[in-house]
């Protein structure tokens, strides 16, 4: 008979995990895992990842980018770090949920597990500090940081989870064959979001130097460990490393530059408010006990420095690292609180830490407490809605693979990655072009347009294993032209409603004008969207006139 004994620590960790998910995506997801459309997606980047993952599911692999993502370029190789997409697709298959639900969930799941990994790193130093530090992680859902999740900074958050696993490895280098962890976790950072690999390398160098200073000798076993780990990582990432080097390394070479602000909501150290004092105390105490607190202290302090790297060249990469700052820096805050209280209470008990931890969580969650950074409740169904989703699904299922689609103005279409849900090459009218046409009271055949898509990698195709061409650069001029003839398109999409009534009215005016041709007819409509099919692309489809 196996006896199960109640372990308070396990109960506490499981409860924390539940609270983290409840606050993170429980409310945001409307208390559902399964949705009828991409739910709570608040920005284009979120759709970028969703559509890429869906593309992998449709194709069965990430050998190629779907052409509708890369402006119609055929056979472009998959050039984004693939790990998160693959995990999202696999979870979709196993769970039966749609990819748009599973990939989004995973980001919260990894953030929750990251907090627990940090807990175990800190616990090796001091269990009480670990308990007190844990609820600080809930601040990943405070202020600007929540947008890291809702706006789609998913790869960086997932990669930071693996970065924390690298920290954990450094706390366990004494384990037999610990280099396996180094190799796998470092490879995972690279295959999820590459800049975290650089941060991991910086941390590991600092760790090596600090260990050598503390031990007053260069550790040969640690050196060997690093070498073996690096070999495993290199083997694991090799294929993608080649793509990264010859695609991103050519198209978007990183240039160091100072940037004091970011065009996304973020967090500054001052946003920790009162906790900043405890953090400062934690830094002092951890430096005083660096021999014992090396890993959590070094991890936290290096993440403060790199997270402020925007001031010395890391640009947006530094701001991205702040999405999990509350997890990285939780040790310093927890240690500061613990050590200060230890001056008052000599005989510290674990139960005090648990009570303090719960109190910290309550203070963070309760919005009325002054001088504390707070959890921010976020409830939104997001940009997508069931009627638009119905229209995208219709386009993806019912149009010919080579069909070209033109989107007239829609309020949500400015977040243009969501248009990729049509799974077809698409253009859209620019808002400026629309305004100009309305102001001049013109119905036109040629409109100011854009070809939305992911141009960052240039639509790379392989010339040889180490050589790539860039399909986007080779697109014919008329394909990239900012003036597009709407009569060329197979399908034209019109929103019936818009925040500016004039836009919706103009949409319907153009649609009705087009429908006068016998070869153009509506093929889909609901209360929000009308889709017209042009059976004679290239013909003079509309009478240009004033209205």
């Amino acid at each position: 008979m196996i006896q199960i004994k109640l372990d308070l620590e396990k109960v506490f960790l499981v409860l924390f995990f539940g609270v983290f998910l409840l606050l993170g995506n429980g409310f945001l997801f409307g208390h559902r895992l399964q949705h009828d459309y991409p739910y709570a997606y608040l920005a284009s980047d979120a759709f970028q990842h969703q559509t890429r993952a869906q593309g992998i599911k449709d194709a069965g692999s990430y050998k190629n980018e779907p052409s509708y993502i890369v402006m119609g370029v055929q056979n472009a190789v998959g050039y984004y770090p693939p790990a998160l997409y693959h995990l999202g697709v696999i979870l979709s298959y196993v769970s039966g949920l749609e990819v748009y639900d599973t990939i989004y969930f995973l980001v919260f799941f990894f953030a929750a597990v990251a907090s627990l990994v940090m807990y175990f790193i800190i616990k090796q130093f001091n269990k009480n500090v670990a308990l007190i530090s844990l609820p600080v992680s809930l601040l990943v859902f405070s202020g600007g940081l929540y947008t890291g999740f809702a706006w789609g900074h998913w790869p960086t958050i997932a990669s930071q989870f693996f970065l924390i696993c690298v920290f954990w490895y450094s706390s366990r280098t004494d384990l037999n064959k610990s280099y396996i962890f180094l190799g796998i976790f470092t490879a995972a950072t690279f295959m999820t979001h590459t800049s975290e690999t650089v941060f991991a390398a910086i941390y590991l160098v600092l760790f090596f130097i600090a260990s050598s200073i503390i031990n007053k000798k260069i550790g040969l076993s640690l050196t060997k460990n690093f070498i073996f780990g690096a070999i495993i990582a290199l083997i694991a990432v090799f294929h993608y490393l080649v793509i990264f080097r010859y695609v991103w390394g050519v198209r978007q070479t990183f240039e160091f530059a100072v940037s004091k602000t970011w065009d996304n909501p973020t967090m500054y150290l001052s946003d920790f408010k009162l906790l900043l004092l405890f953090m400062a105390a934690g830094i002092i105490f951890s430096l005083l006990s660096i021999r014992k607190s090396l890993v959590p202290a070094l991890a936290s302090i290096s993440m403060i420095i790199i997270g402020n790297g925007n001031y010395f060249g890391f640009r947006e990469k530094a701001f991205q690292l702040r999405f999990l700052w509350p997890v990285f820096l939780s040790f310093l805050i927890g240690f500061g609180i613990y050590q200060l209280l230890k001056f008052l209470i000599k005989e510290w008990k674990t139960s005090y830490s648990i009570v303090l931890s719960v109190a910290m969580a309550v203070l963070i969650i309760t919005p009325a407490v002054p001088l504390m950074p707070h959890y921010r409740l976020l409830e939104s169904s997001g940009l997508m809605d069931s009627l638009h989703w119905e229209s995208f699904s219709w386009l993806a299922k019912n149009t010919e693979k080579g069909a070209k689609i033109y989107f007239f103005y829609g309020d949500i279409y400015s977040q243009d990655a969501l248009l990729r849900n049509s799974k077809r090459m698409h253009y859209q009218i620019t808002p400026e072009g629309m305004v100009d046409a309305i102001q001049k009271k013109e119905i036109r055949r040629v409109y100011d347009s854009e070809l939305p898509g992911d141009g960052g990698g240039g639509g790379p195709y392989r010339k040889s294993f180490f050589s790539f061409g860039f399909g986007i650069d080779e697109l014919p001029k008329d394909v990239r032209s900012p003036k597009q003839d709407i009569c060329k398109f197979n399908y034209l999409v019109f929103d019936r409603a818009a925040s500016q009534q004039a836009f919706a009215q103009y949409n319907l005016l153009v649609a009705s004008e087009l429908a006068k041709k016998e070869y153009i007819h509506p093929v889909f409509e609901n209360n929000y969207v009308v889709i017209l099919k042009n059976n004679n692309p290239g013909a003079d489809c509309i009478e240009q006139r004033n209205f």
Partner: protein
Amino acid sequence: MNKEIFREIKKELMYVGIIFIIFLIIFKIIYYKDPFLTSLRFVASLFWMFVLPGYFAMLYWKEKLNFTERLVIGIGLSAAVIGIASYYLGLIGLNIGYHGYILPAVIIAAGFLLSHYKKQ
């Protein structure tokens, strides 16, 4: 592998089972608008993809790490291995639709065998 180790694994798998039930309850509370079967399948999927492969992969370090730490780190380890391996399996032509069944099973088997043949 002696019987004692098997008994230990059996005991720990029972813990995993209890954690599964607790997770199911937590998920049912948080995502209460979903049907029970959706929650059940989703939690089972998380355990199949991350928890079980992680648990077995970490058995190798059983003597040095306690159960909870192995379970948590194991989630990271299996996520990393599955995420990377799936990319390559796709490239060599195995449809991703199969990866969710093959990869966790392989990691579980490999973890078990590694701990079985580990030099004492």
